[in-house]
């Protein structure tokens, strides 16, 4: 019986990708549509609005958000470095970099927590205005994605990395897929940041 599923580790000779990568890109395509729909809704509501608050009026903390942007970009770099370390057969450096990614993601969420609680303490909630409805929904959904990334990466950095001993190539593939997801989360933020904080 041919029970083994082909191309779980080795790339398909014609398409040049392994299954996991294909699956991850398909997942990201659906994510593009998810965030695209929300972005589209934002444009529609903004076009229909009689008044749209400028960023002075919303009192969003731009320096803090800029810091968060840099944090997330840094975490993307450590993520790709983690993968590169595996490619160079350096498990310890991989652990260091992936640990760094998780740490930076946590910093991002902590900063987000302070941003949210500052708003709540001024009695600003999602129901306050259309702008804040969009702000909380988009950043909240993005925050959930960050949280998901932290969970997956935490699994991969410790228990998941046992696979390195038995199937190093498969493990490297996993890190590549986790990386694709993480970079996408970064990419979404790169768009959210100007749209919500600067415009």
């Amino acid at each position, binding site marked *: 019986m041919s029970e083994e599923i082909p191309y779980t580790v080795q790339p398909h000779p014609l398409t040049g990708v392994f299954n996991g990568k294909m699956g991850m890109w398909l997942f990201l395509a659906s994510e593009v*549509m998810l965030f695209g729909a929300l972005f589209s809704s934002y444009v529609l509501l903004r076009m229909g609005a009689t008044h749209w608050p400028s960023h002075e009026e919303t009192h969003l903390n731009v320096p803090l958000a800029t810091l968060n942007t840099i944090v997330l970009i840094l975490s993307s*770099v450590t993520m790709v470095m983690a993968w590169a370390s595996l490619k160079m057969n350096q498990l310890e450096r991989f652990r260091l970099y992936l640990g760094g990614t998780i740490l930076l993601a946590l910093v991002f969420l902590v900063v987000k927590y302070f941003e949210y609680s500052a708003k709540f303490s001024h009695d600003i909630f999602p129901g306050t205005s259309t702008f804040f409805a969009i702000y909380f929904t988009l950043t909240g959904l993005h925050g959930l994605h960050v949280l998901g990334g932290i969970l997956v990466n935490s699994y991969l950095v410790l228990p998941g990395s046992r696979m390195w001993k038995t199937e190093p190539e498969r493990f490297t593939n996993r890190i590549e897929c986790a990386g694709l997801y993480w970079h996408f989360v970064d990419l979404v933020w790169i*768009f959210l*940041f100007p749209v919500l904080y*600067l415009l």
Partner: protein
Amino acid sequence: MAGSAEEVRKHVKVYLMVLLALAVLTVVTVGVSYLRLPTGAAILVALVIASVKGSLVACYFMHLISENKVIYSLLVLCFLFLAALLLLPVATSNHFWFR
């Protein structure tokens, strides 16, 4: 996609350069927002910068620059449908008298 360890070493340098570019662009986009450009121009500049940053992430961190055709075709497909989705705000503009 990178194959050997040698190639990967070269990549690392590229990653650091991309990091630098992203940081600079972040500062630029924040800086521009303080210039108080007219709304249209501000949106254009911000979105252009965001697109450049996004492309950098996609091309280098996600290795799209050296990806396979099948992934490209998938993304082209996805962006076609995304374009249809972005028609949505236009689709309400032809409605009668929105208060």
